[in-house]
């Protein structure tokens, strides 16, 4: 009989509930978090639409039918059609791909680079810390959309450059979170022991510090996805992100702007899609935060 089995049997005899692993504990807390679960369902729905959009969409996203231009919502076109007679529901379904892709890649850029810089700042010496964090302070001084505009001026228009621009804008947030978490963890005994055993700095950061600062990074990743989706929508709205005729929610709002008065659905549904998706990621982030660190749970 192993030690774990004997502990389990003792618990059973004492009438105690079964013990859970740390991961099971997190899952248990998340499943009981109503808002977090709503966020998870919304996020999964958006991911499902993004993957299966081409199969599920009633029409190709760029298929034009001028005889059906400005058609109001109906059974044939549940969200109506735009000025070119394109089915708005189909374009929103394809647009989910763009939004998710931009969100995942730009936040991926920000999270990996920012976390790495934050860990180096937190674990490295005072000079390294000062240099990295002052650079982050400088980036923080720029209003986000303005910094994104400046980066896009350097890189040029287009969806790929929009992703890099958004990644640069959100990089300092991850750096600050990773640095403060690293500062807390680096004085723990297991890090001191690893250091005493002769482990190298990169080894300690990767194998000992990184797994222990992952929780706040995961939470920030989920919350940043929503900001990234909003930023892409804004850049596309200004004509700097997704090029026409590809559907992007921000682009759809920008292109249809002059027709909102006569066909209000052109302005309503893409906006609702953005709001719904952003809300999903925010709820998911709230749930993850409360599940991963109950002490951070909001009142």
């Amino acid at each position, binding site marked *: 009989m192993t030690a774990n089995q004997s502990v389990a049997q003792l618990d059973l005899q004492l009438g105690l509930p079964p013990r859970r692993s740390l991961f099971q504990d997190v899952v248990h807390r998340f499943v009981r978090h109503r808002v977090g679960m709503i966020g998870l369902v919304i996020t999964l729905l958006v991911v499902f639409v993004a993957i299966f959009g081409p199969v599920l969409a009633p029409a190709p996203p760029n298929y034009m039918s001028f005889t059906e231009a400005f058609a109001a919502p109906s059974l044939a076109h549940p969200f109506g059609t735009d000025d070119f007679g394109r089915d708005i529901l189909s374009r929103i379904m394809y647009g989910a791909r763009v939004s998710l892709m931009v969100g995942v890649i730009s936040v991926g850029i920000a999270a990996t680079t920012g976390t790495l810089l934050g860990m180096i700042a937190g674990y490295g010496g005072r000079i390294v810390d000062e240099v990295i964090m002052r650079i982050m*302070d400088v980036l923080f001084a*720029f*209003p986000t959309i303005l910094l994104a*505009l400046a980066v896009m001026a350097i890189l040029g228009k287009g969806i790929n450059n929009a992703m890099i621009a958004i990644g640069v804008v959100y990089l300092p947030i991850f750096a600050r979170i990773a640095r403060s978490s690293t500062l807390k963890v680096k004085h723990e005994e297991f890090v001191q022991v690893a250091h005493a055993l002769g482990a190298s700095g990169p080894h300690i950061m990767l194998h000992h510090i990184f797994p222990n600062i992952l929780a706040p990074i995961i939470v920030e990743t989920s919350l940043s996805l929503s900001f990234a989706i909003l930023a892409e929508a804004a850049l596309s*709205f200004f*004509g700097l992100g997704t090029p026409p005729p590809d559907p992007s929610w921000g682009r759809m709002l920008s292109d249809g702007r002059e027709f909102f008065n006569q066909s209000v659905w052109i302005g309503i549904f893409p*906006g609702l899609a953005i*709001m719904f998706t952003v809300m999903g990621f925010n709820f998911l982030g709230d749930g993850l935060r409360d599940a991963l660190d109950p002490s951070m749970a909001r009142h």
Partner: protein
Amino acid sequence: MNYQYVLQRLLLAAVVVLGVTLVVFLIVQLIPGDPARVSLGMQTTEELVEARRERMGLNRPLLEQYGSWLVNAAHGDFGDSLITGQPVADQIVRRLPATLQLAVLAIVIGMLIAFPLGILSAMRPNSALDVFASVISQLGVAVPDFWMAILLVLLFSSGLGWLPPSGYTPIQDDFSGWLAHMILPALTAGLISASIQTRFIRSAMLEVLHQNYIKTAHAKGLSERVVISRHALRNALITIVTVVGLQVTALLSAVVVIEIVFNLPGLGRLALDAVLDRDYTLLQGSVFVMAFMVSLVNLAVDFTYFLLDPRIEFA
């Protein structure tokens, strides 16, 4: 007052502003294309481009160019626009009032909504008002600012016909015209700002309301109004000031978007036009002024902490 703290904070702000100048200067260096060629247009000769490069100092070493840009910027000279040829500083001065007016109005609207809503929902957790405040907060964070602007225009301009959909009248020319043009943009930015502030004010107040000194104040028989205003709110102010300060930075970002949607002649509109027209010097100047404003706000927030709680020290 702890002068060492003030000095250290001022030094840090100076370093950040210097970093901002470097980033802004590098933007122009990194943008593909030749500013001298852009300023001369398509119909030009190599000799003219070379002469313009010499006049603009683009043939000098990079460090020398940065040094001279820094000295000029310190004197309020950001060079001439590549497209219009006008001094960039003049354009910024012309555009600054609209941006500042919008930002101030938005902060006032945001605080007028967020303070009562946040405090009342913290005093009555899980009440109908608390749920309402929570829903409003979540919606405000999720709604894209430019979409909210469009919806408000659809409702108040196209639908009800109460307010103009876009444009701007200078305040000194016609106050009522100015107000009519500013209400919708300020309301858009204010509602977004309020949704975030409400959440933090509620959270900060809830934390304070559970402290022992609040229970003592209640036990002394003080009225709820006195307990909230004299004991709870004062202690929650540090968190609230932090959030309002951070909000100003986020608000300046929203202001850029809202100016563009409402066609307000502010710094945000100027920056977007500069990107679209490839007017590098104009972009440089407008981005620098906005980042400088953010640095000043951050500095003001730090000093406010110190005034609110003298125990705070420089970390």
